């Protein structure tokens, strides 16, 4: 479904990604991990079109998408959440989600406002955000902001979701809830998920496959058990003596 082919990305002289290749199957739930600065978010930026790769290409459903604009890639069906949730503060909670319904994949600009808003509220229910949809996202808690961020991305009706650290800043109960939302997203909405996360013990329990980056290199790719026992991965996280 998604084919990352020999992607390299350099900023000035710094290689953020170095000849990284992997394939993502439809319907899979994949973790993308690595120490700070290993290139995870850069990879998301390349896939979502925010950055153009220096070398290599990204193919999605058989077509090259690297080099296309982020809005075109969103239309094609790849959505992302951001590490730091950044809702549009001058829009209400519902309006933030309505943007995705309206302008995302197969945008529904023809329908009336009620219909669009209903779709948005369904998404808010799906992620379990029980706030007044007409309130503004100013005073929301970290947990609610994460949910809104997910609802916005899912409102674009993606086939692939790039979830960037959806758990950071959450308490224990919220961690559990957010994990359940991700599973629901894959199982009920049929969305393929690539998930960057620092909270390893939760990630390892949920995903079927883990891809590990370190200094821009792909150092491991496999099921959670084998990856967590991989010597290179342990060294990358603990440092080499």
């Amino acid at each position, binding site marked *: 479904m998604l084919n990352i082919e020999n992607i390299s990305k350099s900023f000035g002289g710094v290689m953020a990604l170095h000849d990284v290749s992997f394939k993502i199957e439809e319907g899979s739930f994949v973790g993308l991990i690595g120490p700070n600065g290993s290139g995870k978010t850069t990879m998301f930026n390349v896939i*979502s*079109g*925010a950055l153009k790769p220096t070398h290599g290409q990204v193919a999605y459903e058989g077509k090259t998408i690297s080099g296309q*604009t*982020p*809005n075109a890639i*969103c*239309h094609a069906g790849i*959505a*992302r959440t*951001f590490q730091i949730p*950044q809702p*549009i*503060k*001058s*829009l209400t909670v519902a*309006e933030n989600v*309505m*943007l*995705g319904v*309206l*302008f*995302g*994949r197969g*945008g529904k*600009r023809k329908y009336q*406002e009620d219909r*669009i808003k209903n779709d948005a509220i369904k998404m808010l229910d799906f992620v379990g955000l029980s706030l007044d949809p007409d309130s503004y996202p100013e005073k929301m808690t970290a947990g609610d902001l994460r949910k809104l961020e997910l609802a*916005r*991305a899912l*409102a*674009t009706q993606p086939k692939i979701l790039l979830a960037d650290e959806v758990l950071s800043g959450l308490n224990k109960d919220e961690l559990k809830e957010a994990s359940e939302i991700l599973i629901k997203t894959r199982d009920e909405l049929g969305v393929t998920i690539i998930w960057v996360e620092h909270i390893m013990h939760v990630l390892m329990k949920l995903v079927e496959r883990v891809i590990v980056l370190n200094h821009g290199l792909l150092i491991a790719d496999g099921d959670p058990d084998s990856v967590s026992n991989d010597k290179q991965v342990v060294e990358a996280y603990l440092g080499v003596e």
Partner: protein
Amino acid sequence: MLEQLLMAFINGILLGGVLALLAFGLNLIFGVVKIIHMAYGQFVMLGFYFIYYFYTAWHLPLLVAMAGGIIVMGLLGMLVQLLIINPLLDAPRLNQLLALASLIIVLENLAQVVWGADYRGIPISMPIIQFGDIFIRSSYLLAFLGAIATLGILYLFLHKTYFGLAIRSVAQDVEMARGMGINPKVIYYITLAAGGALTGVVAAFFIPIYTVHPHFGASFTLMAFVIVVFGGMGNLLGGFISAFIIGVVTSITAVLASTEVADILALVMFILMMMVRPQGILGAKA
């Protein structure tokens, strides 16, 4: 004297309404495209000429000529986006500023070549309304009411339509808007078209008040810029408030001293604001 001051105050409010409309367009363009349309007052001048031309050369009814002027100005706004702003979207801010400032020279000279340097206008006599000792020109009142109505329509456009929603999201966070599937370039064209059409609307309200000449726009560019910065760049409510402050202050000063002193005072207020509160009345701190 008291009546005179009261009349000046009322005139200031009426003037403020039209200035608010003018500043709104400049502010919207800055807020969404993040570019300062330096030739905005010159656009009003062009709009005035087009309405004049449609009325006198094509003998169109005045309201049709005005509608034509508004449409042409909207299209010219899109042309500016296509030819000047798009190629410079990622250019340094100074280059953008210089390109749009040079548009002032192009437009003023173009107007001079096409329409000559003479003052031109459409003579319309509108009655003066009297309330006791207070006299109000109905042309000013009409311009004020029209400007407020237009601002109301713009508010509804921004808050009740899908493109309005998209415009507001692009204004706040263009990367996020892209991520939601919005094409910012389309939004920029719509914004420039709306901003251009607004100059046509302002020109239409100016028809019974002023006559036009090629340098007619310069003072409006300056005025709009002062108002927008005074209120806080990109902040639509701030621009609205500061338009009335500037309108009332200049109008009252014109009565107490002279129009020249009024212009000086407006600019002194502007400079003081820059020293005390550079982000303007309602602007966010940089």
